[in-house]
């Protein structure tokens, strides 16, 4: 193997490691959060269970979107689009629940 080839392979494997490292860390964090969510589901916390699980799910999605979908480095307009999806969802929930929670029948 020539020196150039060796260097080439070393560069490639260094690059490959770098490619896996960031997403790999995020993946580990996601697995950890998943374990917490699953574990806490077996504790008798009443409505707290749902709140914790949804909160953890929100964090997991935030991690996924920021680091795996690279929203961290994305252009502003992409982040605006992502925010719009979230905002409109909140709008839907808010106005629908405004009806349901204020019914007395």
């Amino acid at each position, binding site marked *: 193997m020539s020196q150039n080839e060796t260097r080439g392979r070393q560069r*490639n494997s260094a*690059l*490959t490691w770098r*490619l*896996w490292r960031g*997403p*790999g860390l*995020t*993946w580990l964090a*996601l*697995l950890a959060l*998943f374990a917490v*969510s*699953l574990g806490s*589901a*077996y*504790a*008798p*916390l009443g*409505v707290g*269970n*749902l709140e914790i*699980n*949804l909160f*953890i*799910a929100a964090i*997991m*999605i935030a991690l*996924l*979107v920021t680091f*795996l*979908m690279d929203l961290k480095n*994305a*252009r502003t*307009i*992409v982040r605006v*689009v*992502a925010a*719009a*999806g*979230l905002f*409109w*969802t909140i709008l*839907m*929930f808010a106005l*629908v*629940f405004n009806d*349901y*929670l204020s019914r007395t029948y």
Partner: protein
Amino acid sequence: MSDAAGALREPWPNLQLQRQGVGLGMWMFLASEVLFFAALFCGYAVYRSFNAEAFRIASAHTEIVYGSINTVLLLTSSLTMTVALRAATVQLRGLTLFCLAATAALGAAFLVCKGLEYHEDLKQHLFPGPHFPLSPPATQMFWGFYWIMTGIHAVHLTGGILVVLLVFTLFKRRTVPVQGSTMEGVAIYWHFVDSVWLVLYPLLYLAGRP
């Protein structure tokens, strides 16, 4: 460089702008998909807030083992998909192909697991109808939503797997160069399908556990 020229499509003036455009377009499609699922989750949320006990009883009968395995499979597939995109951007064709194949395999494993789970559920007659074993009646509502939510998610996942396989083939045969704009769109969509599952899982599987 002829590779890159093959990737450029009308009406884009250069490849970088095309990649940005595809990414932006796919995020916009995602916004619409978010609202698609949001409507479904809104219905679930409304009914759960008024039938909390029934939903708890119904949820205790979901297959937590299958569901949890599926969660791990999808999270891992998001990892491999991210690496596939990064590899494509730096033109590491071999790694891109490997990761795409791994992603598709993990997705397929999810579907197999889901199939086995559905089989279990149906064996217990957990489908709203005359043989439904649980009471009160609102447990049927939970299970109606279970089938629709997991079903539509599975349809989206299947579509994703088919697209990944298609893209794999196009890359393998060098019909499309890996550093084009295709990977952008595919990766964004795949992560979305995973995100939907991350919401679905606690709603369906983690309610009636204690």
